[in-house]
Every structure is written in structure tokens, then in C-alpha cells.
């Protein structure tokens, strides 16, 4: 695969997430929660909400009464990454504020 295609895939990926290209309509999510969709659509919505973990659709499904498992809590490794990121951003914010004052 060429580098160009890598970049294209990445662009599609970004747009797909941002524009929620495959998020089903609210009525379909309601039908999914009620178990009233044909099997292929039930299977797709389960995949989209539970496996892909689409946050907005998951939130909607939960609000509509779906008994979904809670999102997993952060692991210690994740907490370490979060702390490193926070330290780095704080340091940079401090430097940026100093820069503005000058």
C-alpha cells in the first residue's frame, strides 16, 4: 500500500469519526433497544455500539433504556499516560502564559 493511500485512509477515518458517517438514526437505535430490528440490522447496531464503542450512540441507547455494560474504568497504565500528558500540557501552558506577559 502506498503512503498516499495511508494518508487517504487516515483522512477517511477522520471524517468517518467526525461526521458520524455510520451512526444510525435515533429511530433505529430505539428499535435496536426494543429488539425490533431484522437480525442483520440488530447485528450491525450491536457491532457499532458495543464493539466499535461509538460513544454518542452508546449514550443514546442507554438513554433509551438499553442495558449496556458500563464503560470500563481507567487502568493504572492509562492513568499514568493521563498524568504524563497533564504534566506536559501544564508546563507548556505555564510557558505560554509567561510568553504572553512579556
Amino acid at each position, binding site marked *: *500500500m*502506498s*503512503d*498516499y*493511500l*495511508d*494518508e*487517504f*485512509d*487516515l*483522512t*477517511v*477515518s*477522520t*471524517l*468517518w*469519526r*467526525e*461526521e458520524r*458517517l*455510520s451512526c444510525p438514526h435515533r429511530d433505529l437505535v430505539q428499535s435496536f433497544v426494543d429488539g425490533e430490528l431484522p437480525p*442483520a*440490522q440488530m*447485528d*450491525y447496531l450491536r*457491532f*457499532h455500539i458495543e464493539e*466499535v464503542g461509538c*460513544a454518542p450512540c452508546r449514550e443514546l441507547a442507554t438513554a433509551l433504556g438499553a442495558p449496556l455494560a458500563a464503560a470500563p474504568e*481507567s487502568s493504572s497504565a*492509562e492513568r499514568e*499516560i*493521563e498524568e*504524563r*500528558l*497533564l504534566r*506536559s*500540557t*501544564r508546563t*507548556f*501552558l505555564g510557558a*505560554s*502564559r509567561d510568553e*504572553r506577559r512579556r
Partner: protein
Amino acid sequence: MNEPRIEQLQALEEDAWANLQQLYWKRLFHYARNWLSDHQAAEDVVQETFLGAVRGIGSFDPRYTIEQFLFGIAHNRIVDYLRRRRPATRPHATDEDLGGPLGMDVLARDEQTASQVYRRRETAGRQREVLIEILRTLVGEIWESGELVKLKVLESIFVLGRRNKDIWEAFGLQDEKAVAGIKFRAIQRLKDLARQRDADRALFPGLWKSKWDD
């Protein structure tokens, strides 16, 4: 947790940035991780994304959401990383130029004048609109066909960043080639749709020179 206001972020309020980071870092990390095999590189991308966001927040374009702003920076950082793996021939994007994820051709740029920058942004905006439009058409066509396994495959590739070898068995397909075939046909369809909207090939010039145009 509510998203902080732009004014708070532009004032460089520490709590607002901590709040923003808490809301987005995991999604950004998983997004980067999908494209970069190196765990540390993904963390670096997220770190650079937030630093880039601090640098660029002063010129935040209100036509975009903060999510688009962050993922736009992450997108460019990932592209930078991928490019660093081959000989550098083109300059990197700057955060000040970012308004959100950009089209493909705008990623390679070395123009300097204001009119060129304006034209570039205009083209990027149009590229983005057309790509969204043709992707929506593709997704709609798959829904109408009822072949939702195809949508699962494409979502696995483009959203979860999974490889063909990790997909075929889970979806009951014959082999990896079946996955590659679904992606190939989807790209061919996108190419056809792009052709209809870019007859003079001015909008996506790079597209026509690539392997996409087989």
C-alpha cells in the same frame, strides 16, 4: 463533564485544559494507536496534539468544533509521523493553519502568500465537503443493499484501524482476500463518485496520480 468554553481555553486556564484533556485524551490515543504500531508514538501524538492545541487556540476557527480542532491536529501529527518514516520531501503543517482535518492534497503545501493560503483553505473545505458527501452516499448505498457486513468491514478498517487478517474470520468471510475485495470495491465506488463531482480533476489531483487510479 461539560466541555470547557473556548474563551477559557484561549485564556489558557489550567482547569479548562485539564478538563478538555480528560474528555478527549483517550479517544485521541485510540485514534492514533489505530494508525501507529508504536504505543509510544501514539502517546507522543496525543501530547503533541494538546501542545499544538494550546499554540493554535488563539486562532481557533469557530466554524469548527473543539473536537474537530483536536482531531485535525492529531490527524496532521499522524501524517507527519508516517512521513518521517520515509525521506522528507515536503514541509510539515503548522497548527496555526489548522481549522480541522484537511483534504489530502492540502497536506502537501509550501505556499506562502495570503491569497494562496486562502485558496488552499477554500480547496480544503471543498475537498472535505465532497469527501463527506461521497462517503455518506456510499454508506447509504450499503444500508439500502442490506449487506451490512460490508459496513462492518469498512468501519473496522477505517474507524477501528483493524487489518484484513484480523477481520475476515470475525465476520464469517472466506479469507483475507474477501476483506480486501470489500475495501477495493468501496474505494472504486468512492472514486466513481469523486469523478462525478471532480470532472476536471482539479479538486483531487493527487488522487488521480495514485494507485487509486489503477
